[in-house]
């Protein structure tokens, strides 16, 4: 092999490596590339659903496992004056709206929710950032609320509209919202929690009501839930991807 070929081969490899590293950001920034990279989300969801089955439970821990410090992430308070008035009144006047593709729209008070059969679970909360905390959650199963309202045949997703604005935007797209499909909505551990560690949910953790979706990451577990809307598609909500964080590039299915 000649010196020239030698140099060419070495140069090509070295140059290729440098280009790869330097080109990463321009490749990363391309919407087409992001779209291709994001396609595996569907594969991941399909595979995890097959492996889990519908009712596989997230592990439940004991009271001794509860974290002393449970980090509050995302919004830890709400600026909305209406919400603040409700909070000052101990959420006595707060009502949960259930509407959309349901047979009987509902408006439920906290007392009415507390009067329904409850479920208590001690579970691990995994943040997308990488940390985990264990807490105890009590609330009413989402499936019970949906049974009360009755789903229309076209229903496919359950959307949680929240009181908090996590990002200030002119078009109000910074309002927090989340959505799950009917498989997660029917899961026994999917609850609307009003108690945390045996006490009413603190404001930092989403008072008066937050969702628990135990087989997914923390950002799915919307806080400050004001309204539950049943829809057939979330394309008209926010930026159309089904959740505040999905609108910002995160996976809608957060099982990973």
């Amino acid at each position, binding site marked *: 092999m000649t010196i020239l070929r030698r140099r060419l081969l070495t140069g090509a*490899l070295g140059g290729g490596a440098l280009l790869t590293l330097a080109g990463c950001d321009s490749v*990363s920034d391309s919407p087409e590339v992001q779209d291709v990279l994001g396609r595996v989300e569907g594969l991941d969801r399909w595979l*995890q659903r097959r492996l889990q089955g519908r009712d596989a439970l997230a592990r439940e821990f004991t009271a001794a496992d509860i974290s002393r410090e449970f980090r509050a992430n995302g919004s830890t308070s709400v600026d909305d004056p209406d919400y603040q008035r409700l909070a000052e009144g101990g959420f006595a006047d707060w009502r949960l709206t259930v509407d959309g593709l349901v047979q009987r729209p509902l408006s439920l008070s906290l007392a009415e929710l507390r009067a329904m059969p409850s479920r208590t679970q001690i579970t691990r909360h995994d943040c997308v950032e990488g940390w985990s905390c*264990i807490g105890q959650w009590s609330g009413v199963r989402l499936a019970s609320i949906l049974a009360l309202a009755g789903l229309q045949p076209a229903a496919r997703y359950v959307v949680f509209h929240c009181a908090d604005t996590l990002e200030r935007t002119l078009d109000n797209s910074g309002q927090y919202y989340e959505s799950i499909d009917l498989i997660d909505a029917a899961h026994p551990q999917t609850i609307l929690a009003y108690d945390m560690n045996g006490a009413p949910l603190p404001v930092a953790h989403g008072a008066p009501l937050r969702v628990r979706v135990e087989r997914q990451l923390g950002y799915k577990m919307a806080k400050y839930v004001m309204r539950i809307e049943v829809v057939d598609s979330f394309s008209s909500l926010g930026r159309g991807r089904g959740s505040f964080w999905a609108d910002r590039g995160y996976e809608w299915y957060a099982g990973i």
Partner: protein
Amino acid sequence: MATQTIRRHSVLVRLTHWINVLCFTLLVMSGMQIFNAHPALDVGSTSDFAHPLVDLGDGFPHWLTLPGYQDLALGRRWHFFLAWLFVLNGLAYLLVGLIGRHVRRDLVPTVAELRSLPHEIAEHARLRFPAGEAARRYNVLQQLTYLVVILVLLPLMLATGLTMSPGMDAAFPWLPELFGGRQTARTIHFASASLLVLFTVVHLAMVVLSGFFNNLRSMVTGRYVLPPERVSRERLTRERVS
């Protein structure tokens, strides 16, 4: 003595090797991006924010991460996409390597090779590498290192990676049990990735020291020139005496 050229690496080994290079580099870079969102390590199921096992302050510099600025969402997209490619590539290598006997023939050391381990370590420490006929096969240090990487570190990466997924933990509750909790799995994922990076550094150093161009070509075209036998001074003396 005429130089002898052999076909050293099969198409399978060469192809999967370079796919590996691409995937592993980008996995480490996107992995550091993800790590930077919470640059601390813990043991057990949960995080101890006040007293983590390891606290890396601000984490890795951004020129090392993918993308090269703070973006957890995009880092995750890269990581999970590449992980599939990496695993499928590794499975193809293992499957064809097992059927085609590459693993048993080239990677599993013979008893004689295992016995030569102390000698091989001493030789490597002097930067003297197998030559002539001995250079036809991986030496025993290579064999053992590659086996540890292929059969221990890489499966560990995959298993601890899956354990960090709440969805996988619901499907296989024994996963976090196996590693002693999700945060321990995250720490093992980090440690095992660090060992793989260390392996890569040593591997590259060996590639350079034992004949950079010859090695590189053998992984691109497959052709490898057997390095000529070294004639040591001791042997010359011995031969003269006898």
